[in-house]
């Protein structure tokens, strides 16, 4: 089946999941204890304010009808009005999305740049000293709070040594790359342990495989052997692992954006939580959900492109 058909079929299968995402996001408002409107408004609650929200969110209607209202608005691109900024949420999200996307891609690239060589070093001499070091050090990374690492790097490299801007997004591509290096690095480091481990495992697998012996028997020299035969096969399972963990990568951007004050949707969400701006929180959660779903689809497509066996089996 062609690639387009593959993507199309996958998209169709995703529809129930996306619907589910919208249901959960919609339902969040009903998890709020007590009267949602009153709790949200908190100390600013006035009978009039509460009544407005009730009407706005249709809280008096039956549940199904509320969901219909929610979906109707969603399809028309209406994600509500921010309680704090008093502007449509959609606008807030579109303006805050680019920095987050930058951060995610930057972090993914850095994670690959760090992980591949380390996994190679570990796999080339299995059970050697280098192998043990490469396997042990990331264990520290598994338990490391991202915001803590962010604070430390920020203080040492940005404040003390002034190598990078302390905060912000920067202007222009060069500015972005410079300003976002530390935040992207933090997110990448959080991701590396998992990626290194799976890359190493798949490389070891491939290194021991028969076709590598065949290639050696052909006299294929080391570098060509590594790239065309080993790496080409080893990345395939690693792509899957990266895709599975993309949720963590994306979730990690939240707190890192906050520490480095990057104007992305992550810090938007956190600030909206502080200002009790429910519509924004809800909308950002929805956007994140859809983002992960799309990234998983992308991973599937990449995987199918890399592994010729897949297209024909499925």
């Amino acid at each position: 089946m062609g690639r387009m058909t593959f993507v199309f079929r996958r998209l169709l299968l995703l529809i129930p999941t996306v619907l589910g995402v919208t249901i959960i996001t919609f339902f969040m408002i009903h998890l709020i204890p007590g009267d949602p409107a009153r709790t949200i408004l908190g100390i600013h609650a006035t009978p009039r304010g509460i009544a407005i929200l009730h009407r706005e969110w249709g809280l008096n209607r039956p549940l199904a009808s509320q969901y219909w209202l929610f979906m109707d608005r969603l399809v028309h691109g209406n994600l509500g009005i921010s309680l704090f900024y008093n502007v449509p949420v959609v606008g807030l999200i579109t303006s805050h999305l680019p920095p987050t996307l930058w951060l995610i891609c930057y972090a993914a690239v850095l994670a690959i740049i760090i992980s591949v060589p380390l996994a190679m070093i570990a796999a080339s001499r299995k059970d050697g000293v280098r192998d043990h070091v490469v396997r042990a050090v990331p264990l520290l990374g598994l338990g490391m709070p991202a915001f803590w690492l962010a604070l430390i790097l920020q203080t040492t490299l940005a404040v003390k040594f002034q190598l990078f801007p302390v905060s912000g997004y920067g202007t222009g591509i060069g500015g972005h790359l410079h300003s976002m290096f530390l935040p992207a690095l933090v997110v990448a480091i959080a991701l590396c342990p998992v990626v290194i481990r799976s890359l190493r495992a798949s490389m070891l697998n491939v290194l021991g495989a028969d076709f590598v012996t065949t290639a050696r028997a052909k006299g294929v020299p080391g570098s060509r052997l590594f790239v065309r035969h080993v790496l080409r096969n080893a990345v395939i399972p690693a792509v899957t692992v990266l895709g599975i963990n993309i949720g963590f990568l994306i979730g990690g951007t939240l707190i890192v954006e906050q520490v480095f004050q990057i104007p992305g949707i992550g810090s938007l969400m956190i600030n909206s939580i502080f200002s009790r701006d429910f519509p924004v929180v809800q909308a950002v959660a929805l956007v994140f959900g859809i983002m992960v779903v799309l990234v998983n689809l992308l991973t599937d497509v990449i995987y199918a492109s890399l592994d010729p066996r897949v297209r024909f089996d499925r």
Partner: protein
Amino acid sequence: MTAAGAAGQPLLQVSDLHVEIASRRGIVHAVDGISLEVPAGEAVGLVGESGSGKSMTLKAILGVLPPEAKVTAGSVVLNGTDLVQLSGSQLNKIRGPDIAMIFQEPMSALNPVMRVGAQIAEAPQVHLGMNRRQAADRALELMRRVGIPDPERRFRSFPHEFSGGMRQRVMIAIALSCEPALILCDEPTTALDVTIQDQILRLLHRLCRESGTSLVFVTHDLPVVAQICQQLAVMYAGQIVEQGTVQEVLTRPCHPYTLGLVRSAPDVDHPRASLEAIPGSPPSLISPPDGCRFHPRCKFAEEDCTVTPPPLRLIDAGHSTACLHYERCLDDLQAEGAGR
């Protein structure tokens, strides 16, 4: 293609080869003092059970042993060069143009993400300096030679789209791609259906006759050896126990193990009342039995068989055996013949 050295010199000369494998339980003596000669243009069969060390021998010759295995003694001389002494990059230059290998499991022996044509064309590109166009033409020609139908289309296929027999043909094409003087075959037909086996064997036989390529053919299957080889060496527990021409060894086996193998192989021309299996199981290669390694399973064993390891000695023109009492085998055969 390289010339077979001075006239009369064998193409490949393996002398006293030892391969050891480091394992948790001790050192495994996988290959324990093997000597072998492969004349130019001839096929030499290497026969034995699983665990006899025959695959390790081939891998040691080519230098593609797994990381925990090492050649600890001996030499492998191909056209005057000792392969054991060569470094990895030096060996790489020899692999392909001078010596090639065919493996047992064609499915796992081919790179699953690389197109078949590219895999066949790879060695010519690396060794013969061909560009992509030339190498591709060469690959197509090879595919035709080995009998792959519709080569232009198949060129761009992936290994998993081929059947087992076809994949093995691809492997043969890869092996032939730089026209080596010697091809090592590691049980190339074991994983195939019987009918396909026959096709592949005939193909190998024909190709080698046509180009004068030598073969070292490893298998546990005696009839296969009979079909394709001129010389035969029987391996047991890491050592060669009998050597000679195929004709000689199979009709007049001079080692109880060989006798057992012959008797346990079905033979259409001389059907037996029952096939006899060789009792017992292969010995530990970490601490092999004292004396002759076969003696625990041998029905002719005597006291002296348990003391010193018997050497491989010449008993006839070109026929050697490591059995101290090989006459028993011949007597046994005669008795059987008389009983028919």
